[in-house]
Structure formats: C-alpha cells, structure tokens
C-alpha cells in the first residue's frame, strides 16, 4: 500500500529525514516512535504534502502512485488521511459544513456522486456516536474553542467520515487524558479492516495499549534505527530513549 524508499527531506535547507525506508500493507498497524526532534512529525508532514518541506531524495509510492507528485487534496482523494497533532481552528466554518464539503470533494475525486442530504446525515449520526460526540459540537466553528480531547475526537470523526485507506495519526495522543485516549483509540480500532492501514506516530507507548500495532519502528536522527513488534514499544517505555541513543553511539564508535 505504502512504500517509502530512502526518503530524504528537510525544511529551510536543514535535512531532517536522512533516508527512511518503510513498507505498509493493507490491514496493518504500524507505530513510529522516537524522541523529540527525531523527525516523526516531519515524516507525517511530508507524506501529507505540507509545502514548507522539501524532498531531496527517495520515493514514496501509495497504491501504485507517486505520492510526492500529488497535491495535498489529491492525496486525500487517493485515500490518505493525516490526523493533525495540532488541529487548526477555523473561525466561521462549522464542522458539519466543512466535512460535507470534504466528503463530497473526495467522492468527486473518486468518481462518485455527492451524497444526498439524507445519506450524509445518516452517516454523520453514525460516526458521531462512534466518537461519542454531541451534535452541538459539529455546528460550532471547526475546532474553535475545542478542548484538546474534543479536537482529537473531531480528527478521528473526520477520518471516519472520509474512510481513508491509510490513516497517519500524528501524536494523536499528545495532551490527552487516559479517557480521551481510549475514546480516540477505540474509534480508530472500529474503523480498521483488512483493506486499510494505520501509521501511528507517537512519543509514548500508552496509545499502543489500546491501538495494538503489528510493527513498531524507532525513528532516531532522521532514520529508522530499529524495527520490531509491539514488545519493542514496551522495551522503549521501560528503558527510555536513552537506550537507543546509547546503542547508536556504540555503533558509531565501532564504525
């Protein structure tokens, strides 16, 4: 589904990703963990098409297409979703109005008719209850004045409405209490099936208690330095990122 090969990217002339390789297949959940500044959010941004970043090498193939050639909206059309670490507040635009536009634009991209009002409302109701959201929240301006938990729930609600093939969740757990993490992770779990995949980017292991990954990768200094199964996340939690740092430094000394 997603194949990242030797991806190098940076911002303002500073190289942050120094050769990332990653393969994600349908039905899989991957977690990327790493200390602050390791390049986690850069990877998410580059995959979603944020313009501030420049790709200096490597390739990303998504469902057979060259992802890096597509505009952010076309990436969404192809089935990519980015759950923002800091969802943006949009004054004057209600969540309902916004998601309706987004759903129909994505459908248009996929050659489908726009949803009629009845079908849209039915779908919205269903996804709202999935995320334990109130109707009033959706009629308010998008994310404006929302609590941290509300914002993240709204992200997963949007994911549910857009039904992506690959969801990249950028530190969706940051700033959330344990109840909010549970709601968010349960939402994601219910949306999982054999045809879609999740790439969860996180600093801490606690999200992965609820959203159990098939693979865990450790990102350090712009590279994936260690990959394993969910036990790796537990090991990281116990030993802290220092153990990765120490390993890396030993390797550098040896070479």
């Amino acid at each position, binding site marked *: 589904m997603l194949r990242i090969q030797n991806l190098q990217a940076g911002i303002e002339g500073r190289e942050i990703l120094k050769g990332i390789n990653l393969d994600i297949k349908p039905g899989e959940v991957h977690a990327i963990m790493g200390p602050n500044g390791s390049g986690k959010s850069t990877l998410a941004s580059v995959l979603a098409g944020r313009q501030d970043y420049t790709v200096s090498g490597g390739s990303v193939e998504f469902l057979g297409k060259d992802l890096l050639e597509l505009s952010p*909206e076309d990436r969404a059309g192809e089935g990519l979703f980015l759950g923002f670490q800091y969802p943006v507040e949009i*004054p004057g*635009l209600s969540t309902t109005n916004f998601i309706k536009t987004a759903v129909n*634009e994505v459908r248009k991209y996929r050659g489908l008719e726009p949803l009629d009002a009845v079908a849209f409302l039915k779908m919205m109701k269903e996804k709202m209850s999935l995320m334990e959201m109130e109707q009033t929240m959706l009629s308010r301006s998008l994310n404006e004045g929302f609590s941290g938990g509300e914002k993240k729930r709204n992200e997963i609600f949007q994911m549910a409405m857009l039904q992506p093939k690959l969801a990249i969740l950028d530190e969706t757990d940051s700033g959330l209490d344990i109840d909010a993490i549970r709601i968010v992770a349960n939402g994601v779990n219910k949306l999982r099936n054999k045809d879609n995949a999740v790439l969860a980017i996180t600093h801490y292991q606690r999200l992965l208690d609820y959203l159990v990954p098939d693979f865990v990768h450790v990102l350090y200094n712009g590279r994936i330095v260690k990959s394993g199964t969910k036990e790796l996340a537990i090991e990281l939690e116990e030993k802290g990122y220092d153990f990765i740092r120490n390993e890396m430094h030993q390797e550098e000394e040896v070479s």
Partner: protein
Amino acid sequence: MNNNTYLKESFDRLNLPGSSPLSSIRKAAFKSFDVMGIPTVRHEEWKYTRISSLFNKEYQVSFQNPTSLNAAEFAPLRLPGHEDASELVFVNGMYVPGLSNLKASAFGITSLEEAAANQYSEIVSEHFNHSSKYLTDGVQALNTAFIDGGVFMHVQPRKFVKYPVYIYNITDARVASVLSQPRSLIHIGQGAQVQLVETYITLGTSESMTNEVMEIVVEQDAILEYYKIQNDQSSASQVSTTHIRQVGKSVVHTVTVSLNGGIVRNNLHAVLGARFAEAHLYGLYFQQGQSHIDNHTIVDNVMPDCQSNELYKGILDNNSTGVFNGKIFVRKDAQKTNAFQSNKNVLLSENANVNTKPQLEIFADDVKCSHGCTIGSLDEEGLFYLQSRGVPKTQAMALLLQGFALDILEKIKPAPIRAYVEDLIAQRLTADVL
C-alpha cells in the same frame, strides 16, 4: 485652491432667497467650502484617500438634470425583499416620489425645506447639519450648499416599522459625468424601531461622484438598524457621511458592506449623547481590482454609561487599497464608558495594502476602552488543513474567507439582504481565480 469655478457658478445661479430658513445655512456652507476646498492628502483625515482629482473635473451638478429614469429601468435595480420593503428612490441626489413606494404608514417623508417650515422646524433647526461639527473638510460643506432635493424623514414615536426601508441612491451617468449630492435628515421618534438599508447604483459608464450626507437622530428608547451596501461600478466614487446622533437611551446597530466601487470613503459617526445609549458598528469590505475603501468612524461618548462595540473586517485582493480609521472620543463627563474596537484585515495579494489606525481620545478617568488591529495573509496552516481533507485549494480559500466574513454577515438582520450579500460574496469567491 481647486478647480471649483463651475461649482461656484452653479451655486450663484441658484440665487437662494433670503427668506428661506435653510438659505443662510447653505450660503455659509458654500463659503466654508470655498475656504476649505476639497481636501488633499496633506489633510490629516485624508492622508491615504486621494479625492481631489475626482473633483477636478466638470460634473453635471445633479439638480439641473432631473432624471429620465423610468419604472421599467428601475425594476431590475431593486433589492431582494422589495415586495415587502418600503422603497425610497433618489436619482442624482433628488428624491423621486414617482419611483418610491412608502408602505409603512409610520414612516413619513417631506422635503427639507418644507420640514424646516412646518411642525418639524424645531427638529430641523436642532439637528440639521450637526455633522459639520465633526468634519473639517469642504466635502460636507459642499453637500450642505447644494441640498436641493434633500429630504426629511420621520418615523413616528412608538411605531415598529415591520419591514425594512430601502434607500436607493441612483446616479444616472448614462449621458454625462454626474455629481450627486443626496442629503437627508432622519428622525427616529421616541420608542420607534426601524431598519434602513441604503445602497448605491450608478447607471452608465461616465465617471461619477456621489457626495452624500445623511443625518439620523435617534430618540429615547428607539432602535435603529442601518445597513449600507456598496457594490457599485469602478467608475463610481463616493464620499458617504452617515451621522447618527443618539439623543436618548437608544440602540443603534450598523453594518457597512463595501464590495465594489472606485474610491469610496465612508464617514460613519455615532454620537452617544444620552446616558446608557448603545452603538454597534460593524463593517465588511472585500475589494479587488483598483478599488479603494476608506472607513472613517467616530464614536463620540458625550454622556456617561454608554457602550459601543466596533468590528470591521477587510479582505483586499489585487491592487486594491483600504483604510480604517477608528476614532473614539470619551468626553470629560462620559464616565463608565465601555468602548471596544477591532479591525482585522486579510491581504490576498502582494500589491494590496491597508492602513489601519485606531485613535482614542479619552478625557474621562473611569472608562473601559480597548482597540486592536491585525493585518495578515490567509492562514496557510488552515489552508493546508482543509486541503489535507480533500478540499481543493481555491475552494479551501473560499471557505476560509467566508468563515472570516461570517461574524459580520451574521449581523445583517433582514434575511433577504443577508442572503443577497452572502450571494455576492460567494459569487466573487467562485469567480475569482484567487
């Protein structure tokens, strides 16, 4: 001095009778105009708005040219909701009863000259030309000198005018360049309630200029909503003065929407002249091409315990330019004044620009005043957020801009007018290759 010879000749030709109650005011006004002239950019209040060249040409002065506009030509110019609304039509500054339609019985209209001589004479003598105290340029004086065709409007006390009153200022520039100078004094009686919607329409492509002065007196317990919709052609420039004087505890709610035109200058004044008077001033300008919008507002807190709230939002595209100048006076006696002001601007082009200036002059010591302004480009982060959800960039921009404008549009209470304005903005956002 400016090239005002033709105006002087026109004025002399009027040969005003000495006995008419307004003649002396008019003669004095022309003298003031002659002394002050048309302001240049050296005038502090006109630093960013250049109108002298607009007056440096020979216009047809309106009253010499009664209109040829007929009902069939007027029909397509009418605003949505006109089925219920009362309509007042001014052509080249002159009130045209034949095209007007007064449906509300509580609303009366007569010429200024007549009003000055009949039972309204006291109101006229007390309030007519009060705006001149707030303007130190010759433009207002020029209007006062040429008030032929000006009107006095009156809303009876304790009457609720159910449907809005539409005021059309039509400039017929199909044959020649025209200077129209509408003038009105509106008296909102005690406890009355009315919605006024004013708009400007220029016919023909000759360059035209509208120099309007509207003075409104709001009595105790009255509620006034005033909406100004400016969406004229680029050959049509205007200086539009709306002077609202609250002489009793009353509520004033204004929304100024400026979408198109040549050089447009609005002077909006709210004089809070009684305790507990309340004024809300909202504005939205969305400019493109070479257009220029200048909103000069004054909130004058004369008496204690008054409240005002001002929010102007602007979107400027292409080479358009904008000015916001918000003056708040708090007079010595106006303790416990509560005054807020905010001006927010989005520039869509590198060539667009805006000058914004809050001006607070406070002479009382127990007051709450705040002001703020912002100028920026469209929020890149918001744009990316919407795009990442599949919304194409141009549409994402449109959604962001509509969201930006929403809190002003919500302040337009007559539903057909709000829908009309929203539609104009939506059309612009889809037509525009932003």
